[in-house]
């Protein structure tokens, strides 16, 4: 790809059209690999490019990435089983979320995916029970004890403060819904838990529409789009795999999104996924273009670029999370504590 702009769009192109990598020169490959690593998509890319001709060193790098993705899959499922075992006396549902759910159900989104923390969801009323079991029987402990953060998480967030396992050094995030309580939309978490389905290995995951909606909410309605290309790839895989299995999926998805007050986030995710990873038949808006600018903000070494766009999305992420007065109070407290 001599002369083509070296930014996140290179990774998007390679994922959408694996055969396009035939045009890469050595520097193009170096750039593609650095960006894929920065976006935590190197394992996904390695699987997408399987069978494509590539320089010898690139093949070795991609082999390493496939080995590593296999390791992440194995340890994610192991963590899920450990959490499930710790919660064996809990009679409510423990639903796996994000990457662990994708690999537990053997979904396309899980192929080569990098997985860090274990994310699970339980009913809000049961948080206390689940938390106690994880701390006492499971062997997890709080990452840091801080009264303000703890109160903040419990009053305003959609999850408990993070816990880390004493021996295995792996984090667990225990959610009770999919967006901060202070965010605009209020998804119906109880309905998500009710509709959850069981995988072959006895673990619960969200039903397909809820899974795609959570992915879109996480990407569009929460956060500053860090790791956005990976989340959007997840959405693309979830959407296309479910649509292929059931032609009514697209319509069901929107009905369900209405129920969770997340229609616009889901629609934007659909447009962006189609434009970046799909057949590009979707018409995108001017705001969509800003999202694309942010999603692909990487330079040739994989460093974050486009500082102003990043800052704008950073501010947006905080405004999405909470009303301005509350945000000011929160930032003031954090600043005084120097963290």
């Amino acid at each position, binding site marked *: 790809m001599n002369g083509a702009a070296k930014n996140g769009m290179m990774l998007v192109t390679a994922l959408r059209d694996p055969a396009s990598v035939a045009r890469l020169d050595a520097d193009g490959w*170096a750039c593609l690999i650095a960006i894929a690593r920065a976006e935590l998509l190197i394992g996904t890319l390695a699987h997408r490019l399987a069978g494509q001709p590539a320089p010898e060193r690139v093949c*070795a790098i991609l082999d390493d990435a496939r080995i590593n993705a296999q390791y992440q899959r194995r340890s994610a499922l192991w963590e899920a089983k450990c959490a499930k075992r710790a919660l064996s006396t809990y009679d409510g549902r423990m639903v796996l979320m994000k990457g662990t759910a994708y690999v537990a159900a053997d979904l396309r989104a899980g192929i080569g995916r990098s997985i860090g923390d274990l994310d699970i969801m339980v009913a809000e009323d049961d948080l206390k029970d689940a938390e106690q079991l994880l701390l006492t029987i499971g062997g997890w402990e709080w990452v840091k004890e801080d009264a303000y953060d703890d109160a903040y998480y419990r009053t305003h967030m959609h999850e408990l403060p993070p816990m880390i396992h004493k021996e295995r050094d792996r984090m667990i995030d225990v959610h009770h819904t999919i967006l901060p309580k202070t965010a605009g939309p209020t998804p119906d978490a109880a309905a998500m838990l009710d509709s959850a389905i069981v995988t072959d290995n006895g673990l619960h995951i969200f039903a397909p529409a809820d899974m795609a909606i959570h992915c879109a909410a996480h990407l569009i309605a929460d956060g500053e789009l860090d790791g956005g290309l990976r989340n959007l790839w997840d959405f693309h895989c979830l959407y296309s795999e479910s649509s292929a299995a059931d032609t009514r999926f697209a319509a069901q998805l929107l009905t369900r999104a209405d129920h969770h007050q997340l229609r616009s986030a889901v629609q934007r995710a659909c447009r962006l996924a189609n434009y970046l990873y799909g057949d590009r038949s979707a018409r995108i808006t001017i705001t969509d273009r800003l999202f694309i600018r942010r999603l692909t903000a990487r330079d040739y070494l994989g460093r974050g670029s486009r500082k102003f766009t990043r800052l704008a999305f950073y501010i947006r992420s905080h405004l999405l999370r909470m009303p301005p007065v509350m945000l000011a109070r929160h930032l003031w407290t954090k600043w005084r504590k120097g963290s």
Partner: protein
Amino acid sequence: MLHEFRVTVGPASFRLSSSWAKPIAQMRALYAGYPAADIPDFNVRLEPVSPLRRFIRPSAAIDGDYMLPDAAPLPARQGLLGLEMGMNLQMALGWRRQMILHASAVERDGRALIMTGESGSGKSTLSAMLGQIAGAQGWRFMGDEFALIDPESGDAVPYPRLISLKNEAIAAMQAASPGGHFGPLMRATPKGDIRHLAPPPDAIARMDERARPALLLFPSFGRDAAIRDVPPSEAFMRLTQASTNYVALGEAGFRALTRFVREVPVRAIDYRSGDEAMELVEQLWSALP
């Protein structure tokens, strides 16, 4: 604007980038004679922690393709150390082609002596001494930090990066190898005083030549000379701790390591001086089948 240097060390290639020219120039000088790299396996970067800290009390953040959260920055004048630490970290976190052991290695007659142990055991200095001084006796330096074990063949793959000398080892090696190509002396780094030494020319020229592991040693500095047998089970457990990627390699790692401890004799040695250690090594080596 970033200064850049690309280098291949054994099977791994790196692209080093720095906001400051000096660490790159130092790397270029110390890695003279190593092959360049067109496609790097890994990127390592040194950049100021904030724009001001490029010039005022310059402070370098170490970054790269793979990073640990909360890595501490270094004064920019220790940039060379930062780049080396970044390279080690890329290998430890990202390399999956061979099993990585925290160990040093030297070779003679196609067979490898591998030495592992805690920091301070002397494994690094011993490999440097054998490679530099005993070069005449046929030892080839393969690496002082990582021994790479190929999971398919079981062979040791050389990784002759710069030798990182710490504290007392600096003076010892300067005395032992007066003609050696040393880097700048960096005092009071987070790891103590550090000075790098370029490996001997034959270690660089033959860095693609693998060797069959023939002896594993656990050296331990500070007690009267002694040799002890180490059962394979204990060696196995200690090597799982000494490996950066054993768990990530899964079944391939398990096969490679069980085969290693079955095929390779293992000894622990105590010693009080470099000469004593080298004598013990020669004694054990000559007794090998």
